[in-house]
């Protein structure tokens, strides 16, 4: 009887925990959610040196403290840069892990654009950095480009469960103030590259008509076939 009660409590707890995780995993499409190719976030901003741009690509979100999650050697993370506004990549920066080391290629112009990629390991700009498991970050620099890969605190903040309630028609009063950060206390696998702007090609006028010169960027996760 006692054992059964404990079991019941255990099952209930498991269901609750699963419910929370599933809700948060719905950040992206079901085909990719929760896989090693699941991109959780992408950032691009002016570096501490204003002549540099920093790219941050995060994968495999909602990792618990002390997580031993690893980058997948079959998953290529590719940062795309469009310098003329036609929404087609003119330059790419590729990152892929091998045996505890993250290898980087680019920025370079790919021989083909689109859904499928190959790696030109002979491109002139390459770098590598030991993957950081936790704590102190191991970084590396080559050709003025800085590299990092490893476990980090997830900087994203969002009351995701309340958002689901709102769009699900279950929250007639909308969001709560204050809300709850459902990403508080979670980690993510992060790839950070800081690149001198001079290596990033040209710019074009902002499509929103602000008159500011910009490039387009986006990140893709691609699995070896």
């Amino acid at each position, binding site marked *: 009887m006692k054992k059964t009660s404990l079991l019941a409590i255990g099952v209930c707890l498991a269901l609750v925990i699963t419910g929370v995780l599933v809700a948060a995993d719905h950040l992206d499409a079901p085909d990719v959610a929760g896989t090693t190719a699941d991109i959780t976030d*992408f950032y691009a901003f002016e570096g501490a040196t204003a002549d540099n741009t920093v790219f941050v690509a995060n994968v495999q979100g909602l990792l618990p403290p002390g997580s031993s999650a690893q980058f997948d050697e079959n998953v290529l993370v590719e940062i795309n840069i469009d310098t003329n506004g036609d929404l087609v990549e003119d330059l790419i920066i590729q990152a892929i892990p091998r045996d505890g080391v993250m290898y980087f290629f680019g920025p370079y112009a790919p021989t083909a654009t689109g859904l499928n990629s190959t790696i*030109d390991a002979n491109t002139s700009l390459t770098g590598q950095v030991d993957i950081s498991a936790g704590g102190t970050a191991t970084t590396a620099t080559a050709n003025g480009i800085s590299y990092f890969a490893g476990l980090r605190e997830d900087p994203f903040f969002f009351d995701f469960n309340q958002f689901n309630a709102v769009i699900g028609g279950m929250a007639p009063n909308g969001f709560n103030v204050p809300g709850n950060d459902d990403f508080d206390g979670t*980690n993510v696998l992060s790839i950070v590259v800081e690149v001198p702007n001079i290596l990033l090609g040209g710019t074009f006028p902002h499509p929103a008509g602000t008159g500011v010169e910009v490039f387009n960027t986006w990140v893709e996760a691609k*699995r070896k076939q």
Partner: protein
Amino acid sequence: MKHTNFKILFVLLTMIGFMSCGNDDDAVVITTDDDGGMIAVDFTGTFAQEDQMGRPGINTVLSPDNTTENAFNVTIPSAQGAAFQPIFLQRAVDLHAAFGVEYETNILGLDATTLTTILASDVLQVAPDNPTSYFDGTNILTGRTLTDDVIDISLILFFGGQNGDRFNGQDLDGDGTPDLPILVTDGVSAAGETPSSSFPYLENPHN
């Protein structure tokens, strides 16, 4: 032991063979490991897209169902507008209709068609010669910093109307109870985030 050595030698020879005469000679690198030994690292193969992202939350918020979400992730940005803008526009209409209202032109002067047209191409604009902000009133969509409140900005652009505060829990009849829902903030700010000002910027992991 001996057997293993032979195996390694064979692998190395095979890879060097690839380097000299194979079609994949651009994808094998001979480098050194931590002990200074020579190793061959293989980057050959074709990698096919499974996920894609430019701006935060676009697919999550604007795709109405799983099929659309899956398709969006494997569509190149130059093809996303034509394929998904009509779906996203309908989503904008539906999400407003759920609260009994229609979309109102937003603080950037964008009507629903223009806004969904911009958002359907899921790329992030970055201004390399300007301060970075997703939106701070002065800098508009010039990139994304680690502390930009992209959720609130997106909600304001989507639900906020021409003044940005259209749905902020207003008490219209003054009876002490809100008459409108709160849709322009999720009530979570960047206050809990303390990224570093130097590379690699992101905080140490929780352990």
